């Protein structure tokens, strides 16, 4: 390096490295030029460019240079610090430098990938590099702190994802609490008759897993319960769970269901939610025969005793276990866990929103979930495909993409509808001799055995019409259309519009985020994508992690997905949680704040600002003090201290001011 620069002896010696990232960066930014420019900045002892800084040789080069050139600070211009900050901190440590004497410059996500003007992008890279060089001089030597991890895990949601994650964790010897909002676990999968593409019976493969959950010594199953509040941080979460009253003591009920027969309502007359309203139930009910736990519950909206207090209570009388408790109240329990797996699932699109398909107006229009119950042997019609008036349909039309791929409702492809529509087409054909029409826009069957399944359906003589149905009406033009439902569609492959009369319309509704997904994600402090599904940390490399450490997501709460993918993801989430727990401790970023005692005037301005109550007022000294274990490093107190007496590690005032100065210096 040139002599005159080394004269600035009081400045720490900085090493600067710029990554080509193949052509990802170098294709837009003139890395050689940037490196040359930075080498002329005060204090810079080494400036290099290299093809892949994150590669082993790249890291090795840094470590070697630190030793050879007595580097005191390190700046790497490459991708986002969210990706490789840790990598280069380790490289610094390897060279014997405190890892926090390092600053990363994001010139890929924030420059080369988003700009087209090469000159301007190069200039921006220089600005950002200069800012980092100016900033890194002020960096302090810091250490990460270690906090032990609580080995218990919370799984939220008892669908197939939650069940699988809970079992995996429990089998690995971890204590798991599984919290489910409904009265039984099983989720959407419990509604299905068969599963694509193998057509194996959903109940046959699901119910053994459900009972395994119930009987597993390491799993505490809390159904009819919801998470109220989550506090703490990775490895140390405190969770408050609300347990709703079933009015039946869960420990006493054995699920004999005699109470249901004994109910004063002789006929089941209330819509059965589990059967999508197609069947009826009594105020005392159990969702389905294999419900887990197999415990009845009372519906306070319809139970006479709960509504008026004036019932013979024949249900309670007949119970020899004395399980009924009409006075039961909701209660709250608190648990400590180290990790949380969220598997809260999806909500089916509300078909009423698409007026043109007449759902709710014409009785012959059904949703796919209704058909799932209809073709199910344990469903309201014991598996017979009949219309609401009991007649058998002669023709059935299945409309794909209802509430999917539509800017007016949901823009995304719901991913499972093509396959389940094929499955339903097959089942309807199997359960009746109706003509079946599939109206699709694009047939999407990318999965093991999926295309083969499509092939099978083609051979079964199901009609496939490529086009989005515009409406379903009872407007008849020809005699054969009279008294039937007419579907209008352009047969896009033929190039003209067709009117197809049917008796039953099946709307293949898409998958949406749960109605309370926003509240849930706030409760767990994670993000949602614009469509409302939970946001993964990285779409490819961290698909089950969230931006909050120790909280993992699995299944359709993250995006629409089918059962095989859901189970795979649940396993991955469980493995991530295990990795966290078995490490035994977590290292926390040392970006905490601290009060300089001699400078603090005790004005208390900072105290109410801390969301974690990490700042307290020491009465005898009359100064504020920050508990660094509780501090999560937002820096709001440092920004607000009116006398500048609070410092945030890694984000100190002079670090940021020099970054501002650096980025704007010309």
């Amino acid at each position, binding site marked *: 390096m040139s002599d005159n620069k080394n004269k600035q002896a009081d400045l720490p010696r900085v090493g600067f490295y710029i990554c080509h990232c193949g052509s990802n960066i170098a294709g837009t930014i003139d890395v050689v030029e940037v490196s040359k420019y930075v080498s002329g900045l005060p204090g810079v002892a080494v400036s290099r460019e290299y093809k892949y800084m994150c590669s082993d040789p790249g890291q090795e080069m840094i470590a070697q240079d630190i030793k050879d050139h007595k580097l005191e600070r390190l700046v790497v211009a490459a991708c*986002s*610090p*969210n990706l490789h900050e840790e990598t280069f901190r380790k490289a610094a440590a390897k060279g014997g430098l405190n890892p926090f004497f390092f600053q990363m410059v*994001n010139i*890929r*996500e*924030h*420059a080369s*990938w*988003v*700009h*087209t*003007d090469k000159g*301007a*992008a190069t*200039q*921006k890279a220089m*600005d*950002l590099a200069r*800012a980092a060089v100016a900033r890194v001089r002020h960096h302090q030597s810091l250490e990460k702190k270690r906090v032990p991890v609580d080995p218990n895990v919370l799984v939220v949601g008892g669908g197939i994802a939650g069940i699988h994650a809970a079992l995996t964790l429990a089998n690995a010897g971890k204590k798991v609490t599984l919290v489910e909002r409904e009265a039984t676990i099983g989720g959407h999968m419990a509604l299905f008759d068969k599963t694509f593409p193998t057509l194996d019976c959903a109940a046959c493969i699901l119910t053994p897993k459900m009972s395994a959950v119930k009987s597993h010594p390491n799993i505490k199953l809390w159904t009819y319960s919801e998470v109220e509040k989550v506090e703490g941080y990775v490895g140390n979460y405190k969770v408050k769970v609300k347990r709703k009253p079933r009015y039946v003591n869960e420990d006493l009920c054995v699920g004999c269901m005699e109470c249901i027969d004994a109910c004063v309502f002789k006929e089941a007359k209330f819509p059965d939610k589990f059967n999508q309203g197609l069947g009826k139930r009594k105020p005392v009910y159990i969702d389905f025969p294999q419900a887990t736990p197999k415990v009845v519950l009372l519906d306070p909206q319809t139970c006479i005793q709960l509504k008026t207090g004036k019932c013979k209570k024949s249900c309670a009388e007949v119970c020899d276990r004395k399980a009924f408790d009409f006075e039961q109240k909701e209660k709250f329990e608190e648990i400590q866990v180290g990790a949380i797996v969220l598997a809260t699932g999806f909500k089916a699109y509300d078909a009423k929103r698409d007026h043109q398909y007449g759902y709710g107006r014409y009785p012959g229009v059904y949703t796919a979930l209704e058909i799932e119950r209809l073709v199910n042997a344990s469903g309201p019609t014991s598996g017979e495909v009949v219309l609401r008036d009991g007649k058998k349909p002669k023709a059935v039309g299945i409309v794909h993409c209802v509430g999917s791929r539509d800017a007016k409702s949901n823009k995304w492809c719901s991913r499972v509808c093509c396959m389940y529509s094929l499955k339903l087409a097959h089942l309807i054909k199997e359960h009746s001799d109706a003509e079946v029409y599939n109206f699709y826009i694009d047939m999407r069957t990318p999965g093991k055995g999926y295309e083969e399944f499509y092939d099978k359906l083609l051979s079964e003589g199901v009609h496939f019409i490529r086009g989005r149905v515009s409406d379903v009406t009872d407007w008849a033009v020809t005699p054969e259309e009279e008294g039937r439902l007419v579907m209008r569609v352009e047969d896009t492959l033929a190039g003209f519009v067709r009117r197809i009369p049917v008796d039953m319309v099946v709307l293949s509704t898409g998958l949406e985020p749960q109605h309370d997904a926003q509240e849930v994600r*706030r409760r767990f*402090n994670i*993000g*949602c*994508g*614009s469509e409302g599904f939970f*946001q993964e940390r990285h*779409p490819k490399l961290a698909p089950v992690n969230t*931006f*909050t450490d120790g909280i993992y997501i699995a299944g359709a709460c993250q995006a629409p997905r089918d059962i095989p993918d859901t189970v795979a993801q649940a396993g991955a989430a469980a493995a991530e949680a295990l990795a966290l727990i078995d490490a035994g401790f977590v290292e926390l970023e040392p*970006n905490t704040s601290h009060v300089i005692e001699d400078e603090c005037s005790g004005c208390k301005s900072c105290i109410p*600002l801390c*969301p974690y109550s990490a700042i307290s007022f020491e009465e005898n000294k009359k100064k504020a003090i920050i508990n660094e274990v509780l501090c*999560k*490093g*937002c*820096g*709001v107190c*440092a*920004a*607000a201290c009116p006398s500048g007496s609070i410092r*945030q590690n890694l*984000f100190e*005032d002079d670090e*940021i*001011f020099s*970054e*501002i*100065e650096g*980025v*704007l*210096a*010309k």
Partner: protein
Amino acid sequence: MTEKFEPRIVAFFCNWCTYTAADLAGVSRLKYAPNVSVIRVMCSGRVDPQFVLDAFARGADGVLLGGCHPGDCHYAEGNYKTLRRMRMLERMLKAMGIHDGRFRLEWISGAEGEKVRTVINEMTEKVRALGPLDLPGKTLEWDKELKELEAHVNQSAPKEEAVHAR
């Protein structure tokens, strides 16, 4: 040389939402104006109004501040603190003659890569239309009036000049 005016905008993005959104914009290869340089902070609540003023004083033509949507702060409520401060700061900037579009506070969630692009492009155009702010240049201009007397007073004993020029 009459170079076309390219605005220089300094942005403070919170790590969890807006910075992530900017990363997402990158991953999605969205294209936007190269005029904004991002300084990362953990929370928009770390942004001291002094940072904004300092950026202007050091030559920024605009300052953009990005945080999580209200209710979505990674640190529960940091962004509310930001909003309160910045509403006041905006009034102060206005009183000091810094035009409306030069400072902008935006809530951009980690999923809104598209919004990063729109906001940056919009702001760049807005600031471009407003023209350079160039406070460092203005300061030099203002301080020109001090040069004349300096020379006059020092005339009597030019050798002393070195002492004053520290």
